[in-house]
């Protein structure tokens, strides 16, 4: 005859067994339920991707471009300093005021021919490129400010070698050459058509003025075209792999002199990556070539004042 405790243990065991049966039954049912036609089959077979793979999806994107209520102005200078020369002590071969509207994310590159005959603060009338050798980038900034009436926020200057290195850090840039450029002074040797330029070729393209009737004016325009080509290439690299920004930024830092801080250069680079290329235009101040004494110079047209006014108001100039 069973004792009471034996009976209790038996009942507990029975209950536990019932639970076990119930749990195992549930598991079996669940597994069976998941074995429908579109579901993986349990057992020895493995799961592999279906041939009908869903296409990769580009998710949401956001890049923290600079934002602000007023435009940002950066003076971009190319010094004709050769290796071993201080780039802020030689003359400026390339002078471009870049205005960026931080609300509309539009920008304008406004070129000043290096032979522009202008008033240099404290130095009288001279070619604008002399402002760099006279007083460094700060004086060139002052000179452009006095011409345009626009307060310039920052400057960035590079040299021949610097430009070559910057372009090389991007790989090659693509430029549509519109007329023959064969110039022994700059080393330019291009036939008309689309050209994929390395750093050396890009430098030659930016320096050549002998291939054109209005020399300095077309050269200034071409320098802007090169900047746009570099921007295009940079955007391509960035959107392919955003990490590419960092080595480019490092090369930039080591090849320029600037009043920009590293965080601001980083933010400007992100802004450049995000701007639509169709929202950036490249202009040269309206001007004519002429002589001042024995010097061949460029006279900026009075109509340029309308450009300055527009650029001061919006950061950009509508293309004409």
């Amino acid at each position, binding site marked *: 005859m*069973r*004792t*009471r*405790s*034996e*009976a209790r243990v038996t*009942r507990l065991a029975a*209950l536990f067994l*019932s*639970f076990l049966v*119930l*749990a195992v039954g*549930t*598991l079996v*049912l*669940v597994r069976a*339920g*998941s074995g*429908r036609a*579109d*579901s*993986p*089959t349990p057992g*020895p*077979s*493995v*799961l*592999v*991707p*279906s041939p*009908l*793979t*869903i296409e*990769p*999806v*580009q*998710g*949401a*994107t*956001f*890049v*923290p471009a600079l*934002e602000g209520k007023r435009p940002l102005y950066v003076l971009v200078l190319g010094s004709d300093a050769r290796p071993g020369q201080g780039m802020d002590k030689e003359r400026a071969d390339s002078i471009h005021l870049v205005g960026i509207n931080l609300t509309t994310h539009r920008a304008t590159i406004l070129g000043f021919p290096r032979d522009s005959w202008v008033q240099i603060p404290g130095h009288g009338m001279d070619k604008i490129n002399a402002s760099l050798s006279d007083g460094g980038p700060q004086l060139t900034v002052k000179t452009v400010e006095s011409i345009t009436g626009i307060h310039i926020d920052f400057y960035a200057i590079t040299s021949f070698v610097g430009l070559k290195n910057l372009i090389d850090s991007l790989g090659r840039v693509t430029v549509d050459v519109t007329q023959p450029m064969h110039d022994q002074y700059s080393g330019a040797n291009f036939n008309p058509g689309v050209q994929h330029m390395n750093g050396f070729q890009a430098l030659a393209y930016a320096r050549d003025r002998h291939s054109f009737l209005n020399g300095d004016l077309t050269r200034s325009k071409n320098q802007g075209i090169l900047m746009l080509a570099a921007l295009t290439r940079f955007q391509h690299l*960035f*959107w392919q*792999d*955003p*990490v590419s*920004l*960092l*080595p480019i*930024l*490092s090369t930039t*830092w*080591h090849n320029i002199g600037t009043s920009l801080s*590293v*965080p601001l250069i*980083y933010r400007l680079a*992100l802004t450049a*990556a995000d701007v639509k290329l169709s929202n950036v235009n490249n202009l040269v101040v309206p001007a004519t070539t002429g002589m001042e004494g024995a010097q061949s110079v460029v006279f900026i047209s009075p109509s340029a004042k309308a450009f300055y006014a527009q650029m001061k108001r919006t950061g950009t100039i509508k293309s004409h």
Partner: protein
Amino acid sequence: MGPPERVAEEGLTTRPDVPPAQAESEIPIASRTTRMRKRRPWWAVGVAVVLIGAVAVLAIVLTGHRQVLPFTPKRQPFTFTLGKTYPVSLRAKHPDAAVAAVAASVQSTLSDMYDGLFLDPHAWSTAPPSDVYDHFTDTAKPHAEKAGAGLGLGTLTGTISTLSVDSSNLTVHVLVGPNSKPAAAIATVEFIATAKTKSGSTLRIDRKAQYLLDDVGGTWLVSGYPWTRTTVDKMVPSPVPAGAGSGQTGSSS
């Protein structure tokens, strides 16, 4: 001494050392036994209810319908596997400790973010939990909130019943300024998970993404998300039995 004998009959032990007078003063054994008999069905019913409840919960969890439960089963927070860290220095030397600290902070931020975007059951059914957006800078936050599920499961939201991580990897590039301080970071992640849909399908989700991160008061937060790419494969049983060869990898190309 009738009552003690009846006790013995019922299989209970007697206490011979208890004086009869004391035993007499206690509640008669016969009536205790009767009450126990009356209680037993309730006890059994209680246990049965608990067991049935446990089985029901088990079934719900196993069938991937956790969301119907009135409580959320506790889960382990997700952590990215930290791969390599690459310093990009604007000066000759870079501070290793500072770069490692950035990587650790980035790992923490992105792990928490992915936990909310992919592993939180709310993200499967409706949208990522609101605290996901705490991992963004003030500038990026409104954009991230607007993107919502687009940051994570996207159009799969509402279809997922369970999701588990198969593998993850995080690499961090740190820009070190000329003052030797980290100025910016870019993280590259790969996150592979297996999801079961409500319709019973099994999906393999492969998310590759890159994030820009800024230092905000010592914590690195997401300031941008320029690149994300998600590949979703519907998994089907292999036509080749397991162990018959390793040719399956090529079949997915």
